[in-house]
């Protein structure tokens, strides 16, 4: 009484698009940008070694520091070679979030067109300061998506200088999280676990976060 491989129909893995939207403005210069670069390498390695995250995650990276750049287009972690970021310029966070949302929407559409199952897109927004451009439209758009259950947004303030209130308008559900100083490694270890933890939820709810969140975050600001 054994099944044979040709008699079963293993489903194709669902995809989870993750866009990292990273602040590399001038204030990140020095130790923060070094730690971000190291953390990014760790993140890609961790995603690749996490069985669940590796199967589903496709990662893109958008940076904002002076200008907004799509540094990496959606790809599995193993195929990404992240460049070393250089801190410079102001903090055009509104423009960066707009680009990130556009990229996530395009990626979702490509899954639809191909008949590939997919999970709620993730946007990880990290900043050590506050936006220096017009951010209101981008915040409104991300908030609507989050409320509709169509986006998981992780707002992270880097270190004690980040203005968490500036992140709040982008994230109507999950309060901004302050990364304790020098906890990039912990954050980038935690993120793949949360990506891999795709428990089923009632329709219209966001994804649950991995409980190890306190390994890197201060208490959530309600």
């Amino acid at each position, binding site marked *: *009484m*054994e*099944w*044979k491989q*040709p*008699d*079963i*129909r*293993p*489903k194709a893995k*669902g995809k989870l698009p993750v866009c990292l939207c990273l602040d590399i403005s001038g204030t990140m210069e020095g130790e923060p940008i070094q730690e971000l670069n190291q953390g990014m390498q760790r993140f890609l390695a961790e995603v690749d070694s996490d*069985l*669940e995250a590796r199967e589903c995650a496709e990662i893109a990276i958008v940076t904002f520091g002076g200008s907004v750049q799509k540094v990496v287009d959606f790809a599995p972690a193993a195929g990404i070679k992240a460049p070393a970021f250089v801190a410079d310029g102001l903090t055009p966070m509104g423009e960066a979030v707009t680009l990130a949302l556009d990229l996530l929407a395009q990626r979702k559409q490509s899954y639809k067109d191909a*008949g590939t*199952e*997919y*999970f*709620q897109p993730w946007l990880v927004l990290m900043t050590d300061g506050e936006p220096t451009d017009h951010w209101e439209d981008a915040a409104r758009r991300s908030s609507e998506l989050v409320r509709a*259950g*169509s986006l998981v947004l992780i707002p992270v303030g880097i270190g004690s200088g980040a203005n968490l209130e500036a992140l709040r308008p982008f994230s109507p559900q999950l309060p901004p999280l302050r990364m304790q100083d020098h906890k990039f490694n912990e954050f980038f270890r935690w993120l793949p676990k949360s990506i891999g*933890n*795709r*428990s*089923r*939820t*009632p*329709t*219209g*709810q966001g*994804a*649950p976060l991995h409980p190890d969140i306190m390994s890197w975050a201060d208490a959530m600001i309600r």
Partner: protein
Amino acid sequence: MAELNAETGAPHSERHTIVRRWLVAAAAVRGRHHEQEGTPCQDRVQVVERDGVLAVAMADGAGSARHAEIGAQCATDVVCELLVSAFDHLWCCRSGDLPHQLLAPLLAQLEQSAVAQSVHRRELASTLLFVAVKGRRYIAGNLGDGVVGCERTGQTAVLCYPQRGEYANETFFVTSTQAPQQLEVQLGTTDGMAAFCLMTDGAADILYDRRAQELAPAVQKTWAWLDTSPPAAVSQALEANLRQFCHPTTGDDCSLAIVRRVAMSPITLRTRPAPYQRAFLGNGTAQGARNRLRVLEALSPHPTHPISIAEVSKATGLSPQAVRRHAQALRRVLELDAEPLPGGLTPVGHPSPLSTSG
């Protein structure tokens, strides 16, 4: 069409008698995620056979609910009990009332469990699938991302399709506000039905082709296992196969239940191993099953005239009381009656209860 002897419940048939019996095998396997986390399997399968009703219910606890395994157990317990005790009532309900009739008692019980656990009811969220058969009728249902399938007139078919949201991890649960609208209930006759299957989404990941929206070929092959192997052995085989094939594909808990209408002559039944005979005849002891098989054989091979309890007693060496007890039990577990269908439905082309063949 053979008729039943009024005294013994046995048919009058001309030649070899074929008897039919619904058998069930089921397994729930803890998924890789829960194994890694050391958390329990949140799938539950329940089977209840009583008063001429066979009910199978399955529930897949929501990963996002803290006590999903408690909720899933509650859902299967309540729904099986309801299907067994109120089958005729449910069958006669207007279709629009059925979801409420099924969900209201379940939600009430979940509320009690939630109070006992000091949690909100949503922490007990689960999906729900079920099949119940009584005589010539079945009730099947699905709420969530599981699949209910069947084999009818030799063809596999999906009875209830999975219900999902836009995203791969979204579905509906018994505690969802949309549950009454989402609970799909199917009523029908078992005419031409050879099997049912129920599977949670973890098992559906390998046994249901989502693009073609059809069951995988493995399902049809699996049904046939119950023709020759006892349900306990088939259940073990299901567990082993789910472990072997689901684990590499999905991290989710996986459950599968197969419900097979087995048809065979007492002569064939005698060639089956003792555990199979016990399951088929609904008698747990080896001696009891042997005696019951002798009664069945005495009742069925060539009774062109009504056979009395005294004659069966004489043929089997069993006391008249024992013969009567076995005959009544056979009536309960085997498909014997071409029972009339409520609601004005007339049996059409139904095979005779202990029909003749050849």
